[in-house]
Every structure is written in C-alpha cells, then in structure tokens.
C-alpha cells in the first residue's frame, strides 16, 4: 500500500505527458506499467506529488522501416515484445531479453521504456524504511551508505539490473527521447551515466518514445544469458549480451559487441575484450581469453549477496559459453540455409 497522498493525471498523448512533467519540476513521475515505480513509491524511496499515467496512450505496433531497421514504441508491453512474431524474427535477442524479465504478470504490465528507465537496485534501498535502515542513504538524499560505509557522498554502488538494456546496447540500438523542445535521438548506451545516484541521462521532463534497432547485416549472430539462482521471477546476478559480425568464412570476427549488465551502476562494455576478437578467428581459446578479460575489466560490484569473486567466475564461464553459442547459432543458420 502506498501510504502518502499524491495526484494522478492521465495523459492522452506523450506530448501532453511531457508538458505535465515539465510543469511540476521534478515532483511528477510518468507511470507506464508501474512494476518498478509503484514498489518504489510503496517503499517511499520516491514520493512524487503527481503521477502522470501513460496508460491511455496506445503504443504503435513494432514496424520495419525503409532502411531495414526496426522501430519499437517505448510503451510496448514486454509480453508483446516476447510474443511478437516480427520481433522474434527480426530481433530475436530483444525478444529473448524481454522473455527473461520477472514473471508473466510483470511482463504483462511492464513496458520497454519502463524497463530501460528502471531504478538501480540495492538490498538496503529496496525495502520500507520504517525501522530498518531508517536514516536515508546517499541515494535517498541522505548522508550514509549502508553496504559500503566508506563510500564518498557522490558514490552509490547500486546496480542497474535491466535485462533488456544489455541486449539493446549489443544490438547498437538507439532511443528516441521526447522532451519539451522536441525529439532527440541517442545511442541506448549513452542513456546510462554510470552514476548510481542518477543512473539515466534524462532530464525530469523527458520520456522515451521509441527504440530503434538497426538492421542486421549478413554474418550477424548473437548470444544472450541471464545468470540467476532459480531461473525466473528474479533479477539477474549478471546479464550477458553478445553481438558478433562474422566474415564469410563464418569464423573470422569482423565486429563484436559485448555487454555485461546487472553488476554495475549501468551496463558495461568491455571494449578491449571486444577488440581482441575483431579480425581474429573465434576459437575456444580466444573466446575464453575475452571472457576472462571481461570479467576482470567489468569489475563487478558485490550485490544481492553475491561476492565479487563469484560474479567474476560466473561472468567468465557464462560469457565464454554465450560467445560459443553465438558462433554455433551462426553455423546452425548457415547449415539450415
């Protein structure tokens, strides 16, 4: 139950929503699926004076544009994403990443934009503060950090746990952002600041309008993995997304994008590990090395009871397997052709 008073408005258009958000100067929040916002309000980590509901705005169906890229409305429900025939065919990694979010009830409500704009997570933060961890931490505008007491005031080592963001970054996707002055377009990667206190590069009156994913070139292949304890209804220990571009021989890598999610304040790209694959034949040894380098470079934050060492072990093994599966997928497709 949310135990404070707030106002509620329903926007008919995204423009109207942006105008309402702008007027309230930070005291208003947009409500899409509510699966992240409402628990945050219940725990009183956020206490907006106004909720601007987007539930009256019908999302456009996913569409393939003239250049072969795909445009997906930010208000698209995760269940729609995972079940859309078009999305599954054109961007299967996105469908896969939507499928592993929460449970079915969450996916029926949660939206693509909401998933990307979710708050960072920390065990000390994600609960009511009636008698536990009462003094606000840095994230809640206070003067302490419970899990890392020696952290400086500007450092919040919470983790950003979207399953979908790593997939979109691997896919080199962009987001269309609507603000008071109109629309701007940035890489999904640029949406994340890496700062746990303010994880998103959005102003108060900005809303995600759509996600654009470029068309896959021939030789494209992908791999995705979410490490969990029970295999569902949970956030990941680590989320791994891999996009590879292979030469005609099917073994030489011409481009690689690797993204690790859920272990830092935002998704992380191990650029050096990516480069170590480009122009090289992808054999076991090279993939193993890239995975090991990644687990080191990513430097995972211990979170949700998992130690740094264990997260590094997990990333190392599962990233190697994810790369190998991507390669295998390319071979299977080749064989199936």
């Amino acid at each position, binding site marked *: 139950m949310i135990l404070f008073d707030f106002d509620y408005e329903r926007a008919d258009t995204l423009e109207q929503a942006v105008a309402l958000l702008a007027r309230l100067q930070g005291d208003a929040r947009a409500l899409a699926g509510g699966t992240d916002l409402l628990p945050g309000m219940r725990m009183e980590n956020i206490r907006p004076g106004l909720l601007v509901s987007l539930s009256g705005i019908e999302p456009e169906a996913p569409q393939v544009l003239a250049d072969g890229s795909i445009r997906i409305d930010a208000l698209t429900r995760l269940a729609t994403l995972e079940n859309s025939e078009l999305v599954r065919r054109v961007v299967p990694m996105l469908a896969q990443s939507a499928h592993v979010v929460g449970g079915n009830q969450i996916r029926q409500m949660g939206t693509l934009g909401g998933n990307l704009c979710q708050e960072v997570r920390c065990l000390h933060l994600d609960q009511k503060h009636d008698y*536990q*961890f009462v003094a606000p931490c840095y994230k809640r505008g206070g003067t302490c950090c419970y899990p890392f007491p020696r952290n400086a005031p500007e450092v919040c080592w919470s983790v950003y746990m979207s399953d979908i963001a790593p997939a979109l970054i691997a896919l080199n996707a962009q987001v269309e952002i609507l603000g008071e002055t109109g629309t701007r377009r940035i890489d999904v990667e640029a949406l994340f600041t890496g700062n746990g206190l303010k994880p998103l590069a959005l102003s108060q009156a900005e809303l995600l309008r759509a996600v654009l994913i470029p068309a896959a070139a021939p030789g494209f292949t992908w791999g995705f993995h979410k490490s969990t304890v029970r295999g569902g209804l949970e956030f990941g220990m680590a989320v791994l997304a891999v996009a590879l571009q292979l030469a005609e021989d099917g073994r030489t890598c011409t481009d690689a994008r690797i993204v690790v999610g859920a272990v830092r304040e935002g998704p992380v790209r191990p650029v050096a590990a990516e480069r170590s694959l480009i122009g090289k034949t992808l054999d076991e040894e090279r993939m193993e090395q890239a995975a090991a380098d990644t687990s080191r470079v990513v430097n995972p934050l211990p979170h949700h009871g998992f130690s740094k060492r264990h997260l590094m072990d997990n990333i190392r093994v599962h990233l190697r397997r994810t790369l190998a599966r991507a390669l295998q997928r390319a071979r299977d497709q080749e064989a199936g052709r």
Partner: protein
Amino acid sequence: MSELNYVGKSVKRKDGPDKVTGKAVYTQDVRLPNTLIGRILRSPHPHARILRIDTSRARALPGVKAVITVEDTKGIKHGFVETPRYPPDQEVLARGKVVHVGEEIAALAAVDQITAQKALGLIDIEWEILPAVFEPEDAMRPGAPEIHPNHPKAPREFANIGGTTETQWGDIEKGFAESDYVREDRFECQLRTHGYLEPHVTLAHWESDKLNVWTSSMGVFVKRAKLAKVLDLPYSSVRIHKTYVGGTFGGKIDLYSHEYCASRLSMITGRPVQITASREEIFSAYRHAQPLILEIKTGVKKDGTLVAQRIRAINNAGAFRGSGVVVIFLAWGFTMIPYRIPNLKYEGFSVYTNHTVRAPQRGHGAPKVRFAIESQMDMIAEALGIDPITIRMRNAREPGEQLPNGDNTHRGGLAACVALAAEKSDFLAKVGRDRASPPKGTLRRGIGIGASAYMGGTLIYPNGSAVIVKMNDDGSAIVLTGAIDIGQGSETVISQIVAEELSIGMDDVKIISSDTDTTPQDIGAWISGMTYVTGNAARQAAGRAREKLLQVASEKMGAEVENLVLKDKMVYHRLNPELKMSYREVIAASVATHRGDTIIGEGFWRTMRDEPTHPSLATTKGRWTENYAFSAQVAEVEVDIETGEARLVKALTVHDCGFPINPQLVKGQVDGQISMALGHAFMEEVLTKDGYTLNPNWLDYRMPTIHNMAISEDADVITEQYRVGQPYRTKEVGEGLISGILAAMGNAVYDATGVRLYSTPFSAEKILAGLRALEYAAKKVRSASKAPA
C-alpha cells in the same frame, strides 16, 4: 465390513472448491463495520534501552483512536514454553529495553492506513544504544553483551544461555575407546523462514464482555489460552473464530504481539481493530527457523556399526526464549531415533542473540540434525570402504525396538525404508558412477541418500483432542472439531473417517471446525498428530453414534446387533436384506423411544493415554510418543562443475506413515517437503547484517517456483491398517520428510563432484570453492609425485 469406502481413498478435498473459486474466507476477508486499522511501532535498534516514550503527539493526531505501550498492559508475560524451568519471558510490548530490530514498542489504532502511518512517526523515543551480539558462539563468551541473564541452571562459564538440554547413556569414553574409526565434524545452516503466503493478520472485536478474534493460526485453543492470559480474561471471554488459513509451516503457533495489540486496542476503543503484518515485517521482525551449529564426534567399528556419538548443538535462538529450548531438546530426539547408538552424549545450548525470536519451522531442527548426521555417515562409510546403503542398514532401527526414552518403534522401522529406497532408485549401480568415469562436458550427476525419523502427537498443550458427531434426523452428520485446516486437509481426513465409521457419504458429513466457543478442544496442527489424535477422536465419536444407531435398530428390527450391517445410511439384517431401516427411521425411533436421544457421539484421544507427564526439556527423560515415522530419501542432483550451479533432478521418498488415510494428501505433503527442502538446499536464505534483514521480500528471498520442482516419487511402507470400530495408528508425514532429502542432496553433490559441504545452502559459490580446493590438492599430489626421490 472389512472393505473401506473412504479411508485409504484419495477423495476430493472438502476445502478445495471454495479455495480455488475464491469463496474461502480468510482472516483478511472478514469485514466488520467501523473497523480501525492497527499498526505497531517497532524497534530500529538491535539492542537499546528505552529512556523515554512520548506518545502524546500521536494521540493528538485526528483520526487516532488509541495508542498503547507496555504501560497500558497488565505486564503478564508469555512464552512458547511455559514451565517451572522455563517460565514465560516475553512481554507483549517492550519494557525498558529492546533486544532485536523490529521488536514491538507501541501500537495504535486509527481510522485509516495513512493516519496510522503518520501517527507512528509522531511517537518519540529517547534511546541509549547498547552493544549487540549476533553470533551464538560470540554471545556465549563471558563478557559478551548481556541480552538476558544466563538461565540459573546454565553452566557458569557461559553467557546468554536461554536453556540447555543434556543427556547421555552408555559410556561415551569407553565407546570411543572401543571404536575402530572416530571422526569429528562441524555443520552449520543458514537462516531460513517459513514462507507462508498468507501474512499474519488479526481482527479483534470486543463486545462488552466478549472478545471475538479472527487470526491466522495453527491452533485456536493455544491462541485462546495465551491471549486470555496476557489480557487477564477468563477463557470464556475470548472466542477465536474459524477462518481459512493460507499456510503456516510452524510460524503461527505462539502468541504474537499484534494479536494482543489488536485485542487490547479493540477493548479500549470499543471498535473492531485489524492488524495485518506487511511482508517486510514478517521477514524482518517476525519469527524464523533456528540455525543450528552441530559438532558431531562419532565412533564406529570397522564394519560401520555405530559405537559412540557425542553431539553438541548450539542454537542461535534470537532475543527471547521462543522455541529455542525446544529445538535443542528435539535435536537430541532426531539424533537417537533412526539408528542404534549404544553410547551417546548430547548437549544442546539455546543462546540468546540480538536476532528476532525463533519459531518452529517444519521439521523443527530435524533437517539440520539429519543433514549433519547423514553427511557424516557417508564420510564414515567412505573412509571404511563401505557403501552408503550397507552402513545405514547395519545401524537402522528395526520394528519392536526399545528407544532410550522408553518409547518403542512398534511396527515401524528404518531398515525396510532404506532397503526399498536403495532398490527403487538402483542406488548401488548409480553411486560413484560419474566420478569413476566422468562424462564429457561439464555436467555431473550424483546420487545420495538420507534417513530420518519423526515423532507424532507428542504431548504439549492442550494435549488432547475431542470431537462431537451429531446425527441430523435425515441421517447426515455434523462434526464439531477444534481441528484447524491449515491446508494439510484435516477436514477432509476427519470427514473420511466419520463417513467410513457411519457408512454415510462424504457429502453427508459437514464440519464445524476450529472455533473455541462451538467446537471441543483440539491439539492444533503443529505437533504432527492431528490425523492420529483428532482422527481417532473423530473415529470414536462417529463410532459411538454408530453404536447408538445399531442399538436402536436392533430394538426396532428385533435383531441382534451382530447381525446388522450399515450401508449407505441404511441398516440391513445380514441374513435377511429385506429387513432394513433407513437412518432417518432409526433416528426418529431413537427420539421416540429413547427419551428424545437425537444421537450424538463423543470421542476423545491423546497420545500415550496412560502417561501423565511430558518429557523433560532439560534432561530428555520421559516418554514421547507411540508413533514414530521412519523414512529414507534418495536425491539425484546435477552439478555444473564449471559454474558450481546445482539442482535437484529427482527425489525418491520411502516413508512409513502407518497407512495413508488419503494417499493424495500424503503425496501432497511429500511433494511440498521436497520443494521446501530444495529451497533450503539451493536457494533460500534470510540475509542479515547486524540484526537487520537485507532481503525482506519474495524477490530476494528466493523460494523455489514450480519450474524448480524436481521429479518426486514416493512409496509407502505400510505398517498399520484401519478397521472400522478399532483404534488405529497413523504416523507423522507432514514435516519429517524435509530432512532426509536435504542430507541426500548434500551427499549427492559429493557423489557428483567430490565436494563435501558442511553448511547449507549448497550455493554455486561453495561448490566452486570446493572444486578449486580439490584441484589444488590434486596438483599438490601430482607435483609431489614428480619430485625426485
């Protein structure tokens, strides 16, 4: 007559349709006009003195109808255990100091949730923070922060001892001296919780001289006794009403502060007061299970025969006595039941720490004890070159064995369960296979076995159950029973017994249950005895009604009772089926010719009917039960040796529940326990730091989902039977089966990987660390063997 129509059949649950269609009324569904919302102010500190409480600002807030602190109570203490040795130790609200985070300090009633929340923030408290202690071995050390004074009979060299259990038999030193092989190990378990889906919730309504209470519980008569006591009311002034209950698993037995607070606030305001605990409160302020540390030294002969065992159990009992002193008593029992141990010494310590109070949780210590003993059993077997089945068969209790406490295994026994489990799982063919010849890839299969035993219906308040069966004049029956159906199916089982005894249909039996004013006293659903104790009382009550029916029919039909048979609400003459009477006719005749007797049967039962006393928690002396259930369980697990990720693939449970009155309900218990045990093994842990709970929600406290459930097979070893008109013996089946399988999973992980786990959960991290240690050891051996001579 010997053929049974209802008992032994998987008849449909009585409560099923109402539950699946949402018609079942749970406490939260009960609505009374003008109900106030109650909230509780809880301690933000693990250990602190309360210097001053000022509730005046909260009282002054419009919409707040009452605020109470300990000054508004009668100061009467309560406890899970209330004996001369262990007098009640807990007040309903904190007095002078708090001893755990979330401890109840004050309570208030307001017109709505938002007002109540605001009012809580207006209560001012001045604190003096005290040093706190969280690990039992730290708390035991002299000089540790004193949570409560040592128990007067506890050894002087320790601190914070809430209670001890000590017992021995044989000559432990002689036993070790005579042993061919002795080993000593230490095992630990994580903090787990019950995971009942229905939260704690209480609605109380004071009606000038009667307190009406609806509360989610496991036994209404225990609740009434404790609530009446702390309110200083006669039992007749407190009525606990029936509601459906959405799961308990041991976590809703004792009196909880919110039950008192809702009642007291209703008495003060004259309005109904409802208090519902949030899930966060349940995780961070309510009671969890008890993490035990077990140190076990065991001596055996070369052939694996147990000669001596010394066990030291240390319980992290939390901030009050709770059931902490019970679990250290029970831990002894879970040690001595399954195997013959000629020389044993046991000592258990229940240690206060600044954690929340502890409660029983399904198995009440057994999973931890059996995990430790069964793990060590496998280690001993391996050291001696014996297989896991042989060592268990060599030591397993047989039928008719006398136990050290004077109890008898009767027709039960572990040996038959172990033998059948080994056979059905093809254990000896599978064990050691993947380690002997590792398959390609990173997945390894392992198999393990664990054994357990559990008592049923042990004497504890209110000790006995009574049942009344009233015949309606159409021949159907109303059963009055205090038994509470917490999901285990007691109403279905009782109906089956009554239908069988009276030869009427299941639909002819209607149950009025678990209401302290209208139903007779009952032991409650928390000592694994309801099917045996209340069931036998129901059998006896229905049997008495049947005898009356037969008597009246015999008079009217001019036939000997021996020549009458009952079938489908009719009485027939055995030799002349034309000679018959319907129950309707018999009952009418009874009213007409037996001074208005409408035919009511009464029954009552208790475990060990001729033993007046309880066993001693301190010395273990005194008999326990006549119903020991034995079980052997086999787990097959799969471990990824690169990631350490492990899962239960298949479980086999061979148990002796006497006989199943409803096989499908028994199967439900088996599957539920497998699921709960695999949560214990691989997923669940209440994470705490300095007494604060880090994961007080379903998201971060991971219980298994249906997708984690393994194949669960089971087999009954039938040792008893049911005869109409005869007492019967059923045995525990609802909590003991969570234990052997936990140990079996640990042993199976070892079988798959060579990694021996000394603590639960069997996390990927621990398994990987174990694999690394093995690799390191192997490298050392290799490099040593390469060294020049």
